């Protein structure tokens, strides 16, 4: 009888501990919410796009591969924005004036957000490498993660976005 009581309690503890140590990049996990200033002017909060599919991209001004991803992200945004897609790019070093000039040169069609001086958003997403691209569904759950961006990633992203928009 004691074992019957202890087993669910142990299971509950394991589940709670697993929840406490779960990586934010786990597929199906809720994307950590944040609010950041955009280089275009106003502040943006991720949770305000809860009913949209969101492509969240992390980049930096010194990262060449990150700027290579921009044309693909622009194209995806153009195609799927009317159906409910939002693309947000978070720059880990966009708070400096030099980075702002770099971002201007990229001419993205979607908002570029500047992570704060403590890089709290990058930390919340346990950012280890750049570029990092996440696809978040309409309910705010991370569904796809790309830890690099090569020539096939754009096509994969487009297919994943189309799949989530159709859900």
């Amino acid at each position, binding site marked *: 009888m004691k074992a019957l009581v202890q087993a669910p309690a142990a299971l509950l503890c394991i589940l709670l501990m697993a929840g406490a140590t779960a990586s934010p990049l786990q597929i199906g996990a809720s994307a950590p919410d944040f*609010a950041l*200033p955009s280089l275009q002017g*106003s*502040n943006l*909060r991720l949770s*305000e796009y809860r009913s949209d599919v969101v492509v969240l991209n992390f980049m930096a001004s010194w990262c060449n591969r990150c700027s290579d991803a921009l044309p693909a992200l622009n194209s995806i945004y153009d195609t799927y924005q009317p159906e409910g897609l939002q693309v947000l790019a978070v720059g880990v070093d966009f708070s400096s004036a030099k980075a702002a000039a770099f971002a201007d040169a990229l001419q993205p069609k979607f908002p570029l957000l500047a992570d704060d001086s403590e890089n709290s958003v990058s930390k919340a997403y346990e950012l280890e490498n750049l570029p990092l691209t996440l696809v978040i569904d309409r309910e705010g759950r991370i569904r796809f993660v790309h830890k690099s961006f090569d020539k096939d990633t754009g096509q994969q992203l487009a297919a994943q976005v189309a799949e989530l928009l159709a859900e």
Partner: protein
Amino acid sequence: MKKPLFGRRLLLALLMSLYVTIVSAGQADLVKDTATLDQDTQLLKKAVLDLNKDLFLLEEELLYPSNTQVAVFVSMDVGEYFALDSIQLTMDGKDVSNYLYTPREVEALHRGGVQQLFLGNLKTGDHELVAIFTGKGPHDRDYKRGATLKFSKNIGSKYVELQITDREVQLQPEFAVREWE
């Protein structure tokens, strides 16, 4: 020769009618089952929502007991002379909140919404709260102002309101901190 053919046709007709009766009865059962399933799903959804609400209340009661609870709210009246960007809140010299406002949240405050900016615990005794408001002031200039409140925390909840109002005479925004009685 005609009789067996007639008999076969009659038998076929009977079988067909029996089949139609069975299928329509099955469909009716299926429709009934689907309706019941929909009702069950709705009841389950309602139960989950109720449970979620109860858990939220329980969590708040456990984490912030009413004896030590302190809550800070933000309200805005008109706000023509100030476009709110962020509020930094410190309690006894310690940063407790740094909140960035989106246009949608500012719009909600303009419409009369009251936002809970901070919920925490404080010991009984004297405390100091400092709120620093950042945004755009008159003539679209960067604007930063602070407001301070020294208060005494007794046993029981303490509620504080940060008010952003317009001072029409001076064409300037005004920032006030007041305690709710």
